[in-house]
């Protein structure tokens, strides 16, 4: 019997999120995800944003382009963070195989290298 019921709540293992009892392994998994996505990607984006904000607000006008580079870098990292979180799969659904983050690491490395090179050029020509 194929029931397609539209529910207000998303169900995890058949239970709503508030009444779900998380096992120890799932808790470890959730913690690892939060470390990665909130603690690494999101934090990097926030740091770049705030650094760009500091440069744009406090520094002299000759540093304007450097601040813009920081803000653009932060936005790109934020987009990568969102896409990476979507691609990471579900904690409560262990059926699909795990895929390592090599692709995302390569993309992040390329973008960061480009940002660094632009920053280097801007600083040397300052």
């Amino acid at each position, binding site marked *: 019997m194929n029931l397609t019921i539209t529910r207000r709540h998303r*169900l995890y*293992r058949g*239970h709503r999120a*508030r009444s779900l009892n998380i*096992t120890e392994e799932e808790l470890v998994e959730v913690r690892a995800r939060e470390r990665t996505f909130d603690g690494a990607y999101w934090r990097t984006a926030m740091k770049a944003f705030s650094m760009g904000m500091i440069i744009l607000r406090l520094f*002299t006008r000759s540093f304007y382009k450097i601040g813009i580079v920081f803000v653009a870098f932060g936005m790109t990292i934020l987009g990568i963070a969102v896409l990476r979180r979507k691609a990471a799969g579900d904690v409560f659904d262990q059926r699909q195989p795990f895929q390592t983050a090599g692709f995302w690491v390569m993309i992040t*490395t390329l973008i960061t*290298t480009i940002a660094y090179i632009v920053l*280097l050029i801007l600083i040397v020509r*300052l």
Partner: protein
Amino acid sequence: MDTSPCLHPFDQTQATSAPTSPSAPNTRKPSISFNLHHNNPVDNHASKSSDSIGTVPLDEVKALPTQLVKSPSVASSSSGPPSSQVLRNRMEGKANQIAQSSDLSSNPGTAGTDNGDEQQRPPMIRRNTGPGGRYIDVPEQVPKWTTRLSAGLRKLYTRYSPSLTLENKGSIARDHLAVTQLFRLQQPGSNPHELIKVSELGRPLGGSFISLGILFLWLGTSRYFHNQTVLSYGQFPASRGSVILATVTVLAVLLACFIIVILQGRT
């Protein structure tokens, strides 16, 4: 009752007011079996039992000590997984009663054995935080020493504070914020005698740190892929060389900077 002096007074009153009744654990049983059933990872669909979740008070389920759930009679009655899947008791370490009752249950010789599980159950504790909890404000007559200490420190700080409290009128805030604008490389034309050398130093310093950043970025990427390949063999590489390299290079740049500043100040 009197032979067990380490019982919590709440437990004692509970035990004396409600004497041992064999039907009391049976009333507990449905929530426990529900509990184990909940942790069953095979349970993958929304059945009718999941709709009755909301009727069972979650706090009561979580306040149950793990000892009670782990008791063999309950475990044998339910078809769920064994006690390794038992939920985390989130009240651990938060309430003294739970710790005390678990201490009691760890050595059953001191506890009253006639009461069994019913006595080891902690009193009903409502969680203060989290979903379903409510914050109960208990007024304190005498402030703690920490409160007094922080109040004293605050008073001391307001007395000797280096910042001024000014009436916010006109461009006061803007002027005082502009004082904070310390981050500027001095232009060569502005003050040609002293600060031009700092400006000369800023560019190579920034460039060297950016290039160090690129170096560490690629070191990190290579380390990631090294990890990725090695982890599939069940090993993990410790990082020694990159740490030493980072330390030595940053230290070299900072030392060079320091020496240049010192030499410029001397001439």
